[in-house]
């Protein structure tokens, strides 16, 4: 693809990003509905979705808030969920390093699990491409789910207030979290980290201000990393 232009790279990325509309839309709808039911007005729902643009962290914040956790604890848990993005950022960094600063800021804003996965696969398959094309491809792959994330959140928030509480939506966040986590349980280390997190979070649930969860997460992270170090590459 030596004759490729940034424009064709953008559209190639765009096509690669289309399937993720399917993933973003239900989450956006659900976030809009649940945030509205929790008492957010549409301005707050949309502000959060636009400013944060990270589903798992938004659901985490919402769950912690329904527990009336202190503001600091709401932020700590939600930001902890997003810490993985530092790893994505470090991994994409060398590929996009030559791009203008504002483009890298846009690339950072739209950095989520999907865009990272599509982007890094492309960059590693064709590392020789100029940075302009890499950036165009990467932004292209984000555009479809980016747009649908906003749109579906808005629709969810719009209709959220008309959904009666007896529809069992109280359990939706739990299903969301489990559905996000289950596919990640690929190695013994991931499973061990998850089990540590569950055991400690339950055992420490008596601690005030939701601090048990943070302790559990901290220990679980080290358990996962330590096991990975000892049994490198072992797949379940």
């Amino acid at each position, binding site marked *: 693809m030596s004759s490729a232009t940034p424009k064709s790279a953008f559209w190639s990325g765009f096509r690669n990003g289309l399937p993720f509309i399917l993933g973003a839309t239900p989450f956006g709808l659900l976030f809009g509905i649940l945030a509205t039911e929790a008492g957010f007005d549409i301005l707050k729902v949309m*502000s959060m979705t636009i400013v944060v643009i990270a589903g798992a962290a938004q659901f985490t914040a919402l769950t912690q808030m329904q527990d009336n956790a202190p503001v600091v604890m709401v932020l700590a848990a939600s930001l902890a969920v997003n810490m993985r993005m530092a790893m994505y950022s470090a991994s994409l960094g060398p590929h996009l390093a030559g791009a203008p600063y504002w483009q890298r800021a846009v690339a*950072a804003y739209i950095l989520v699990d999907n865009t990272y996965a599509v982007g890094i696969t492309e960059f590693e398959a064709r590392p020789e491409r100029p940075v302009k094309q890499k950036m165009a491809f990467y932004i292209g792959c984000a555009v479809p789910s980016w747009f649908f994330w906003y749109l579906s959140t808005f629709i969810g928030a719009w209709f959220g207030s008309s959904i009666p509480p007896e529809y069992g939506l109280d359990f939706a966040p739990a299903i969301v979290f489990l559905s996000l986590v289950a596919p990640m349980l690929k190695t013994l280390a991931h499973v061990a980290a998850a089990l540590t997190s569950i055991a400690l979070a339950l055992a420490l649930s008596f601690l005030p201000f939701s601090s*048990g969860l943070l302790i559990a997460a901290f220990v679980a992270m080290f358990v996962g990393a330590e096991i990975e170090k000892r049994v490198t590459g072992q797949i379940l």
Partner: protein
Amino acid sequence: MNYSNTEIWIIIAALGIGTFLIRFSFLGAFGTIELPPWAMRLLRYTPVAVLPGLVAPLVLWPQATGGQPDIARITAALVALALGMYFKNVLAAMFGAAITLYLLMFLLS
């Protein structure tokens, strides 16, 4: 939920700024910075370290039942876990669990 308007806006703004800074950390750095392997290893486990601990009390002690364990919710959780691990697919897990939950809530009511 018991937060003032100001607190909610603080949460939205701080979460947005914090998340952006995490994302921009290395993309925005001048030159190329390599993260040491041990740091990459730790970061790899943040989602599986946080989310299971967050979800466990929601599954075992749901607020909607006043904290009583509930067979429909626990089964739906197990279905989400099983489908997600087997198919490695978020949507399959989500819809499978939702269908299970509604089916059981209907059958057990």
